[in-house]
């Protein structure tokens, strides 16, 4: 006997020996040292042993080797033989699981002779008694059935007279949701593909016993099946065959009276879903019982949560009964509406409201039913509303009329419809409804809402009202929209105006929008403008009135600046323009309309900016949205338009040539690069940056790159170096950066950069000047270009930058410079897309810089900025590629003891990345790190432990608890738990929450 076989048979289950021997055997089969045949031969005695345990072990070994060795070592013939062997063993309970595993594996992985495939379900049906097996076994059985149905449907078709009844009988009373899903799936396949008709009743009974299905997923829901999945699959099964209706409809109707809401809801769901599939006769036969229950439930029993379900169902059933022709619709509506109509006649009947809902539901989607009921009830209703009714009755009746009018609009009734005969009565009644001055009338508000809704429906009926009358209604809405103090009434009016806009767009744009604009111009102390702007946006988008609104809003914006309105108000105006543009782009066919708005927006905004820039006025502090809007436009303009715009903006900047169309004050000269830059000026540069970033390379080469020449760049560089305004310097440098990145003659541009750095910038950096910040900013942006281009000189230059760290006065500028060079977030996402960085070059550069900073740190006294710079570089680089971590670790650990919050945050952030990426490298220093972190979570008497430091330390402690094995953390667990008590009592709620979270994590660390 092969020794591994012997060992496996003799060793206990799941022991190391048994695993080892099995693995060795699989290895031998893969290496072709042993064949499956040899194993079978060796096992021959074992496989038929009378000792069931030995027999089971033998079969287990054979199947496990077979299922785990390489597929190439097995021939199809061998697979067939093993499949047959497994099938024969299905009656052996001890080796059942192994045999089933084998069957599943072979069916999944090999092409098997059809005769054997056909035998498989037959034998399974004969031999297996599913309810008796444990869960794991049952699951494999269902997997095999599922596989057969998916892969071998044709074979099943040839034995359908055995398979269908056999399967239905075999799977009864299964409870595991995973297996139930398989049953539903196979039943659906049987009904769709095989001859199920002789077994309809059995199949129905099998699936209906699961109705109504509910399932509460266990915590974590490992099996990934939800109650909804099961419900849906069951529903699909139940309505898969028309023949089911004979059994299903009566039983489902009976379940409608269940005391459980879910059962009622599910029954309705299936009854409606079956509407187009089930035999109509079965619906017809059950008409009386169904309508009775529907009525009763909708009246009394359903309760609030189900009421709407029943009302929707009543509508659906009208459609289902219309399958039988008008005769059946008549029967259905008679049954459903006779009682409700009589209730409504008895005004004030307690079931009045439900009756109204039922009648409306019945006629909602069926025109025949609608006309029939209207003919029956409308004349009387009109008579009644003319009479002086008490408010409760009048309110109820008018709401009833409003509902009917909504349905009339759904059916698009024509002018010959009976409703048109009551034009005057309807108009007068709805107007009268809101003219109720009785303060004590508790229905007053309801009546007002009904009146608004009713007039809306009348205005929507084709040719019902004259233009004058519609205008009057719109005026009414406008009034309320602008002035009513009740939010719900205002919203209702807005909704109605939007609803009317499809047919009366001109009226709304010529009356409502101007009113809104005027209101915006007024002095609004509270934030009422929020609502007005919201309405303006909605109506503009609905009426596609983009151009006019955008120009009006800019107008109001400009006027607002003059009148020194609040910043929130001004920036909300710009936000509204942005919202309108974004919403317009989302709508099909409206993009072109939005593109047409571009000239108006561009001309007006540029005019405002240039005017303010010339006057050097500082009022514009709300300009952030402007670049964003230009950005959005850039995405939808075509190549030509972008090119034109680019040329225009370049003209403004380079030639100082302002477009003629602009109404601009010519008394002072416009200097686009005024270093005393007011905000409008920086906004202009920002627009230029956005454009330069977003144009295609072709346009850049043909326009920007020609227009911005060396002379201009030199001038720009000089202006950046000489300015004292660091905000301006940063923006202008960013522009130079984008230009250099995109410029196609790399040699030339890199030479230029070298000149600027070595001549212009070095002269400032090497000088004794007190203010070097703007030069350092430009220096950093230029270094960023060289770093992206992998220029060799960049190391030298950045070293120079790093060496400024010695100087106390400029150390923070130096750290900021490093951030500019290496942080991707300093420029927009679009700019980041313009280039890729050579990874290897980046690694070497960062390693060299780190080494240099460490040297400076060791040799200097003022080392705080060295540590911040180090932390920054480490945070922005890939920690895995940093080489001298052994030197860095002690410095960074030491920095956790320094009383400087900036250093602390930077270092903790570094350690957070380090621990999450390479936890093993910090094992030796773990206890020290944790102790330092604990002290950083305490606020008392440590002003440098700011909220940021405390939160970051707690977060890092949380990360540590998840990154290390429990045996590494257990020695310090108790200390952490005790010491975190301070953080639990922190002054700040957020820190306390973090501490609780972190402490709970540490409690879960157990041996």
């Amino acid at each position, binding site marked *: 006997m092969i020794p591994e076989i012997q060992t496996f048979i003799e060793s206990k289950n799941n022991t190391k020996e048994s695993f080892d021997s099995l693995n060795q055997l699989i290895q031998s089969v893969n290496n072709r040292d042993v064949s499956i045949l040899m194993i079978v031969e060796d096992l021959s005695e074992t496989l038929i042993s009378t000792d069931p345990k030995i027999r089971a072990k033998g079969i287990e070994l054979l199947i496990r080797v077979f299922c785990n060795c390489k597929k190439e070592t097995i021939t199809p013939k061998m697979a067939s033989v093993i499949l047959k062997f497994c099938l024969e063993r299905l009656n052996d309970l001890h080796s059942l699981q192994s045999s089933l595993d084998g069957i599943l594996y072979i069916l999944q992985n090999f092409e098997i002779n059809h005769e054997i495939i056909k035998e498989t379900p037959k034998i399974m049906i004969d031999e297996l008694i599913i309810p008796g097996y444990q869960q794991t076994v049952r699951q494999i059985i269902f997997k095999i059935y599922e596989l057969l149905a998916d892969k071998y449907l044709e074979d099943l078709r040839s034995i359908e007279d055995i398979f269908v009844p056999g399967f239905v009988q075999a799977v009864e009373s299964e409870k595991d949701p995973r297996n139930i899903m398989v049953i539903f799936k196979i039943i659906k396949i049987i009904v769709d593909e095989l001859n199920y008709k002789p077994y309809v009743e059995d199949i129905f009974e099998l699936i209906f016993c699961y109705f109504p299905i509910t399932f509460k997923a266990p915590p974590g829901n490992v099996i990934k099946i939800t109650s909804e999945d099961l419900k849906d699959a069951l529903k699909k099964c139940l309505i898969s065959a028309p023949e089911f209706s004979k059994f299903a409809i009566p039983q489902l109707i009976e379940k409608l009276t269940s005391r459980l809401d879910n059962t009622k809801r599910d029954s309705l769901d299936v009854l409606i879903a079956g509407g187009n599939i089930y035999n109509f006769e079965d619906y017809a036969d059950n008409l009386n019982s169904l309508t009775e229950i529907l009525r009763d439930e909708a009246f009394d029993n359903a309760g609030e949560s189900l009421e709407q379900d029943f009302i929707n169902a009543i509508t659906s059933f009208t459609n289902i009964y219309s399958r039988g022709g008008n005769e059946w619709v008549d029967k259905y509506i008679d049954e459903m509406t006779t009682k409700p109509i009589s209730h409504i006649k008895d005004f004030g009947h307690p079931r009045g409201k439900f009756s109204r809902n039922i009648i409306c539901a019945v006629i909602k989607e069926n025109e025949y039913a609608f006309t029939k009921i209207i003919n029956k009830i409308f004349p009387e209703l009109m008579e009644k509303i003319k009479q002086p009714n008490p408010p409760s009755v009048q309110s109820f009746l008018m709401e009833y009329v409003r509902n009917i009018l909504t349905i009339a609009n759904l059916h698009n009734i024509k002018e010959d419809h009976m409703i048109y005969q009551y034009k005057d009565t309807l108009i007068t009644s709805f107007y009268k409804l809101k003219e109720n001055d009785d303060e004590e009338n508790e229905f007053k508000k309801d009546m007002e809402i009904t009146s608004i809704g009713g007039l809306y429906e009348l205005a929507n009926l084709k040719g019902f009202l004259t233009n004058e009358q519609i205008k009057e209604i719109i005026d009414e809405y406008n009034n309320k929209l602008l002035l009513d103090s009740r939010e719900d009434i205002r919203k209702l009016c807005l909704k109605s105006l939007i609803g009317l806009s499809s047919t009366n767009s001109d009226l709304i744009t010529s009356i409502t929008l101007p009113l809104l604009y005027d209101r915006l111009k007024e002095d609004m102390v509270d934030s009422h403008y929020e609502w007005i702007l919201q309405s303006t946006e909605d109506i503009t988008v609905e009426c596609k009135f983009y151009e006019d609104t955008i120009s009006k809003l800019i107008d109001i914006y400009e006027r607002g600046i003059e009148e020194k309105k609040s910043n929130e108000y001004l920036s909300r105006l710009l936000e509204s323009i942005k919202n309108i543009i974004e919403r317009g782009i989302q709508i099909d066919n409206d993009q072109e309309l939005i593109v047409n708005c571009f000239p108006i927006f561009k001309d007006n905004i540029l005019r405002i900016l240039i005017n303010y820039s010339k006057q050097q006025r500082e009022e514009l502090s709300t300009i952030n949205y402007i670049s964003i809007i230009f950005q959005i436009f850039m995405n939808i303009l075509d190549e030509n338009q972008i090119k034109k715009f680019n040329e225009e903006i370049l003209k403004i900047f380079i030639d100082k040539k302002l477009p003629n169309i602009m109404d601009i004050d010519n008394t002072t000269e416009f200097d686009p690069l005024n270093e005393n830059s007011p905000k409008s000026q920086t906004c202009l540069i920002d627009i230029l940056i956005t454009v330069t970033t977003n144009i295609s390379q072709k346009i850049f080469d043909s326009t920007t790159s020609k227009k911005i020449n060396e002379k201009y760049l030199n001038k720009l560089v000089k202006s950046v170096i000489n300015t004292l305004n660091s905000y301006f310097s940063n923006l202008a440098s960013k522009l130079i950066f984008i230009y250099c990145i995109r410029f196609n003659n790399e040699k030339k541009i890199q030479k230029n950069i070298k000149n600027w750095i070595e001549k212009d910038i070095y002269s400032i950096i090497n000088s004794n000047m007190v203010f070097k910040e703007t030069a350092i900013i430009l220096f950093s942006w230029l270094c960023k270009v060289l770093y992206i281009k992998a220029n060799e000189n960049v190391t030298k230059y950045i070293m120079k930058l790093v060496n400024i760290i010695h100087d106390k006065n400029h150390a923070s500028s130096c750290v900021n410079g490093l951030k500019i060079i290496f942080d991707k977030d300093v420029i927009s996402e679009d700019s980041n897309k313009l280039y890729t960085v050579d990874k290897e070059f980046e690694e070497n550069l960062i390693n060299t810089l780190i080494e240099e900073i460490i040297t400076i740190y060791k040799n200097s006294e003022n080392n705080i900025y060295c540590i911040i710079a180090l932390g920054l570089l480490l945070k922005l680089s890939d920690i895995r590629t940093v080489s001298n971590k052994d030197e860095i670790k002690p410095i960074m650990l030491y920095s956790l003891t320094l009383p400087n919050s900036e250093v602390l945050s930077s270092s903790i952030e570094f350690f957070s990345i380090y621990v999450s990426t390479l936890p093993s490298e910090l094992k030796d220093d773990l206890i020290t790190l944790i102790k330092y972190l604990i002290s950083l979570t305490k606020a008392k008497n440590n002003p440098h432990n700011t*909220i*940021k430091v405390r*939160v*970051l330390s707690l977060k890092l402690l949380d990360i540590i608890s998840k990154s290390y094995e429990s045996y590494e953390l257990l020695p310090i667990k108790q200390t952490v738990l005790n010491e975190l008590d301070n953080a639990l009592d922190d002054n700040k709620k957020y820190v*306390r929450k973090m501490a609780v979270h972190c402490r709970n994590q540490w409690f879960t660390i157990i041996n």
Partner: protein
Amino acid sequence: MTVLNANPVVYEVAEKIDITKVKYDINEQDETREPIDNEEVFDLIRTINDPEHPLTLEQLNVIRLESVHVEDSNNYVSVTFFPTIPHCSMATLIGLCIRVRLLRSLPSRFKIDIFVAEGTHQSDAAVNKQLNDKERVAAALENSHLLKVVNQCLIEKE
């Protein structure tokens, strides 16, 4: 084990907040004290799981915001809970879970009292006595089996 209350009423609850995803400006400099209040304490215990059902104590309405009483300055917290049925044998375990969660999450300066609401349990006096007896609570937590059950209830689900 048969479930005592097989079909309890489930209440709608507020969404669970994942503290690691809450947006908070950590650059804030203002260090003024925000006192511990009953909402904060309620937030600590609302996610405790019921020992019998895969539901939280909040979902079962066993604990309610208004029954949490906090006096931050006097170092005192009391929580009153409402068993779903008067003969609930899990009442002591639920009380113990609440106490353990609070012991782990509140600063040690607090005195914590846990009560079964009066009249909601057939032996409320006995349960209250048990829950607020320091020695008995300590002894209970030394029982490793019981501690395991308590820990199970305290695991926060996703």
